[in-house]
């Protein structure tokens, strides 16, 4: 059972890593717009306006 003294701190370290990664993602604006990227897949790659418009 003594292994618990190692495993739980390891879990805590992983928690810190997860929170750190999440903070980084928030800081770089990845959660600022949750709508537009969802539909990006629907657009064609050659989505350019026709000539002269």
């Amino acid at each position: 059972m003594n292994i618990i003294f190692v495993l739980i701190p390891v879990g805590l370290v992983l928690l810190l890593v997860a929170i750190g990664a999440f903070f980084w993602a928030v800081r770089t604006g990845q959660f600022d717009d949750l709508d537009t990227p969802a539909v990006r897949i629907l657009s064609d790659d050659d989505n350019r306006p026709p000539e002269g418009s």
Partner: protein
Amino acid sequence: MSEQVHSLTAKERFEAFDRPAVQRGFVHEVDAHNNEVTLMVDGIHCASCSLTIEKGLSGIDGLKEIHVNASTHHANLSWDPARVPLSRLMQTIADLGFNPHPLRADTRTALNIGEYRAALKRLVVAGLGMMQVMTYAVAGYAGAFEGMTTQYQQFFRLLSLLVATPIVLYAAAPFFRAAITDLSQRRVGMDVPVALAIGIAYIASVAISFFGDLRTEVYFDSVVMFTFFLSFGRFAEMLARHRTMAASEALSESIPATATRLVRGANDEWQEQEIALPQVQPGERLLVRPGETVPADGNIVWGESATDESLLTGESQPNTRRSGDQVIGGSINLTGPIHFEVSHVGPDTVLSGIARLLERAQGQRPRMALLADRVAGYFVAGVLIIATVVFLAWLALEPGRALTVTLSVLVVTCPCALSLATPAALTAATGFLARNGLLVTRGSAVETLAKADTLLLDKTGTLTRGKLKVVAVRLLDSRQNEQQCRAVAAALETGSAHPVAVALNEAPGDLVADAISVIAGRGIEGVVDGRHFRIGRADFVAELSGRKLDMAPQPGVTTVFLGDKHTPMAAFDLEDALRPETSAAIRQLRFAGLAPAILSGDTIAPVQRVADELGITDFHASLLPQDKLREMQARRAQGRTIAMVGDGINDAPVLAGADVSIAMGSGSTLAQASADLILLGGGLDRLVVGVRQSRKTRRIIRQNLIWAIVYNVVALPLAAAGLVAPWMAAIGMSASSLIVVLNALRLLGGESSKTEPSPNGRFHEHPAT
């Protein structure tokens, strides 16, 4: 005097935004080679539009980054001003068929993003931390029954302390900050009990962890759970608030950032200069092109045009304004270029006056929430006094148990259930309503809506579509056919922004008109298939053929005539028709006990017609915003609870002053900003669902409050008598909170109004793509 104007090309129009003096207001300069700007882009109506803009600009040399948000219509650009001017970027957006406006850098956008990010981080820290602490707590509870050695118990306890500490200090910080603000202003707000519950439970748990014996319970699990639930509620509230603020931000765009000043050139002709709005002075002469917004109040000195003043008056029809007439800043110039002399700028304008009226009305809003807070304040004060008394009493009787018993009292009476009773129900109701097309922007609105007994309605845009529609085509000559007349009318009206033109052009045929000339206030002339036509007022059309047109005007109906050289051909009757769901909705609302009344800024005839159609006897026409406010206040003075539905800026002050205000999703942004609820689907039928749900919510809030109070009344004496161990108190508290939350969750399910997918809700391609 020559009225020749050296006209600005579209390119020159955006060049004004390259000047440092103009840019200072909205461009953020990171360094010499990196500037950032946020543009509000008109014309984005679907996600593919935002992609079109991103793709269209991505090839430009010097543009570093572009992101277009389809839901807020904001485009964030960063570019190198040495390599590409801002005007070129804006021009490219305009070429794609959209209309970019710069957003002032100090607007709330940046603040909102900051607030959103901070709240999101707090919520996730609280959530992840809660999961950890719960794991330890379960292990601890299980261990207590299985006979866990003290070594492990102490270990889990310290771990919980370790994880709970950042949650209390970081995730719960806003509650403490708000509580301190409350106390420093000598009031006891709802955040005070919350902060006390978290603070005392945490500090007591820390003390027990270090100094108490192992049989005494710690409450880290309750602390983090409480923090997470409350953070989640606040987060949802913030999202709703931001969504409405984004709408009100667009209001600042109803006055343009630049104006076109006219100055006398060398050859006695007018030269155009693009200047920033704050530079405009009274007495100056400005040019307003068709489609532009009038930047200030003033008098027309040259030109004639129809202006859309619905922003200020709510009137459905545009007014013809010619030389000598007054124009109001914020109205839209529809048909022809006009020159006007500025009379009022900035805070002296009519629009600013309405904004001030709005602010004042907002200050007078009945503060239901204050009452709830005061009650909670008394409750907390009572608990603190009782806890102190209990502590002193036990200290005298049995000092060893004093701390344990006092803690039991504090925990068992933790106002969790009480403070969750209302927010949990409101959050659940808000979620249900949002799914049903009713956006709640202020939590307390649901409670007030349930009590409303008077329903004040604006006409244009609320009961009606706010747009003209062809309701009848009468042929004036037996040889004509309706199809042909409609097609000719549509061809002639192509490209005009006048509401009549928009209505006639609803189903364009394949005919094309040439040599179109617009005669403001009278009609349009043009050639279709080699034949000369006129469309417009009776006398204007009669003039062409020389044959008289005698037709009595019908009240509330706009009639437009079409004729060629030989004869008048057809009459189109247009009216602002009722929304299809209005009738049924009014009937149901009346059945639910709301007395409807119409307050309209429109003239009496159309108001009367709509009122008759709906069977509403209480109606008032030709009201100015302050008249509407007075009507509303008169009713409130009779002790009635007012729900107001409106869509225009002229409704905004009334909306702000009503007990509960509902804005139409299709309406003006200022109306939405001052509303408690927004009908996203556009029709009043959503309001029927809203009223029903709000009453159910009120019922559940009552049940919750009664439960919380009964629980406290029963538990408090038991705890004070020392009959409740702290662990029992903790379970009791959690259970009572859980019951309250589960009861509130009933609001999420249940009957949901069956809504068909609306055609505008679907993904659709922009014509430019």
